[in-house]
């Protein structure tokens, strides 16, 4: 076995230690529990309070979407906090019915003021509060991956 082979093997078996995982039941206000975990992880990473607050707000939106829209049978939302040197990535996952991402329209305040349905801001807020957002959704559920840089 060559040297490089060995170090490759080491890299693969090295435990992934930079993740915090949280699974919450779909119960009212459980998103607040999740934001407290987010806060604690981000403080650990020495994020400044304003950036932590933005992650918390985006997380609330992602979680209430899963609570409200996913119709997941298992009644749970899984949240992963991935700690990297310069960024925090939060993955929010449900095993619900999913949705057609391309069918979501960008909300506009002037229209919403007159409209009957005033909702539809969550995804737009997440996109604006985080640095990168990626959504994958199918009939097996929805996974939202969002990252915030430390600075």
């Amino acid at each position: 076995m060559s040297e490089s082979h060995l170090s490759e093997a080491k890299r693969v078996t090295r435990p992934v230690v930079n993740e915090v995982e949280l699974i919450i039941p779909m119960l009212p206000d459980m998103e607040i529990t999740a934001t407290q975990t987010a806060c604690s992880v981000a403080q650990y990473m020495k994020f400044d309070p304003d950036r932590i607050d933005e992650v918390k707000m985006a997380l609330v939106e992602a979680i209430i979407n899963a609570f409200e829209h996913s119709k997941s049978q298992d009644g749970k939302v899984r949240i992963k906090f991935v700690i990297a040197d310069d960024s925090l990535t939060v993955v929010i996952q449900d095993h619900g019915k999913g949705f057609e991402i391309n069918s979501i329209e960008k909300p506009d305040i002037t229209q919403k003021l007159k409209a009957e349905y005033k909702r539809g801001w969550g995804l737009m807020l997440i996109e604006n509060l985080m640095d990168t957002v990626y959504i994958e959704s199918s009939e097996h559920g929805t996974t939202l991956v969002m990252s915030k840089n430390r600075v």
Partner: protein
Amino acid sequence: MSDLFNLTVEEHADYAIIRTEGYVNNLGGERIGEAADQLIEQGVKKLVLNFEKSNVVNSIGISILIEVIEKVVDVDGRICFCFLTKTIEKTFNIMGLTQYAEIYETEADARASLA
């Protein structure tokens, strides 16, 4: 958490102040909506919403605030928010609420603007 939401209303000759405490989610938002409805029905056209003790909001709560803004706009009134956290202020900006609602740092600032 939601049962920790609280709200007080202070009525003045020409305007009213709604001071909230706690999470502005669907329940908190509805409480604000009801209080605002009642004031507008009474003829109040200028509202100050003091969020000093509300550090967390969600978009469901905010969409109820949009209803309130709509009603205020309909009566040619004014709505002022104060003591918003940086993130809530940023959120209001992102959503464009600031085209229809005014944001002040303190309650005194908001009241002064209404005088």
